[in-house]
């Protein structure tokens, strides 16, 4: 018999979602069944109103004054691609953190954009003192993975953004993991392109995400990634140059965004600080339970993600054992972030990753700690 399920793969996608998320999605399908921005009948208006509400809530959540500077995409990868393809030109140079995800590295490589990796400490945290000397005359963008999806290390984006501004360079932050975990304010944190996903720390469903554009960004100079119908300027073959239509062609994911709206509201109602504190407490419990175990190596930052390796044990075998014997669901491998694993010295085998959520219990962490300890002991005995 399989043991009870313990979900510690929240860095891949959060689970469970608060009940209000699925309820809002059901309600959206039933009540907001029209196409937002197309037509003026009551179902279309209900969908449009919902779309506006989630846009406004998202803007407020990230401290943006203008809700129309939020552009929704189907996920953060598409958001990052929108910015990289739309903002960068041949000949531009980019600086990236040593913990970047392939959502950044693959588009940069495919576009032939030259980049340098910012020097970091052994945990991959960017060394602020090293940034200036890496800046070239043609450096146009700094890209920072705010909270690593491998180790949870959190980058000092506000200070990096300050340096970027002093050098007239733009800052893109990949907030896939950090949004919902760490308060992010687009202006105070000196961000120009705030890319986020809806289905992790914001508790929305998969298929939601977007970009929030900072005030410095000249929207007219960002090329859209997708062009098509917007319900506006319909007589013209040209893409509108105003927001949000410039980057939101095609029918929006109303059902998904209804879920994101509910997720954001749930965070507001619970209090982000309270949720973060709970997760920190759980991560501290896990960290302190594992750090002194012989044969276990920790790759741990300050966030809600922690990676380990176990001496003499294949990660895939470890993950299978953890689930079969203790019900623990994890994610192993390179986590789509080979650069981060190279930085941490865990390439190419990768790590076993644990990520908590406010729904994780102390008992879950106790069982996880016990499971990892047992596997490390068994591996050591086999030697």
């Amino acid at each position: 018999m399989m043991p009870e399920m313990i979900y510690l793969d929240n860095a891949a996608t959060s689970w469970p979602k608060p009940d209000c998320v699925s309820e809002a999605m059901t309600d959206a399908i039933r009540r907001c069944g029209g196409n937002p921005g197309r037509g003026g009948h009551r179902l279309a208006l209900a969908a449009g109103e919902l779309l506006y509400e989630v846009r406004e809530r998202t803007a407020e959540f990230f401290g943006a004054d203008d809700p129309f500077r939020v552009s929704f995409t189907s996920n953060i990868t598409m958001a990052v691609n929108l910015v990289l393809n739309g903002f960068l030109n041949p000949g531009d140079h980019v600086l990236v953190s040593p913990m970047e995800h392939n959502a950044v590295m693959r588009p940069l490589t495919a576009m032939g954009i030259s980049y340098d990796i910012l020097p970091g400490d052994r945990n991959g945290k960017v060394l602020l003192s090293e940034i200036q000397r890496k800046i070239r005359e043609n450096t146009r963008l700094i890209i920072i993975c705010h909270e690593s999806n491998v180790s949870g290390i959190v980058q000092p984006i506000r200070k990096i953004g300050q340096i970027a501004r002093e050098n007239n360079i733009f800052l893109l932050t990949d907030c896939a993991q950090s949004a919902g975990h760490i308060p992010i304010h687009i202006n105070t944190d000196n961000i120009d392109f705030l890319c986020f996903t809806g289905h992790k720390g914001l508790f929305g469903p998969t298929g939601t995400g977007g970009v929030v554009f900072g005030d410095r960004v000249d929207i007219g100079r960002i090329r859209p990634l997708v062009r098509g119908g917007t319900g506006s300027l319909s007589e013209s073959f040209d893409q509108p140059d105003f927001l949000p239509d410039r980057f939101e062609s095609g029918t929006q994911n109303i059902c998904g965004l209804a879920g994101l709206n509910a997720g954001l509201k749930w965070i507001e109602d619970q209090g982000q600080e309270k949720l973060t504190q709970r997760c920190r407490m759980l991560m501290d419990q896990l960290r302190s339970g594992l750090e002194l175990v012989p044969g276990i190596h920790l790759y741990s930052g300050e966030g809600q993600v922690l990676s380990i390796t176990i001496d003499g044990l294949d990660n895939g075998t470890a993950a299978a054992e953890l689930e079969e014997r203790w019900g623990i669901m994890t994610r192993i491998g390179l986590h789509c972030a080979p650069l981060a694993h190279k930085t941490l010295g865990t390439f190419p085998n990768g790590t076993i990753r644990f990520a908590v959520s406010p729904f994780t219990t102390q008992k879950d962490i106790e069982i996880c700690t016990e499971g990892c300890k047992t596997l490390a002991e068994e591996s050591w005995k086999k030697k």
Partner: protein
Amino acid sequence: MEKEMILLVHTSGHAFNIEKALKKRGIQCRLTPIPRKVSSDCGICVRFDPQNLQAVESFVQTLPFEIQGIISEDEA
């Protein structure tokens, strides 16, 4: 029934933004499809009572985005 004023926007999101803000200021308004004579857009416009024209016009000045214009129903 008195003819309404029609506020035309570039994108439907602006209409929702304006509707919410006007109602917050106690100015009644409603969203309807755009009259075909005015625009080929598939979107919506904001209709309001002519007696609120001045209030709406001064409110529009405070918006961070541009509107297409305000016309009377006669013009449509």
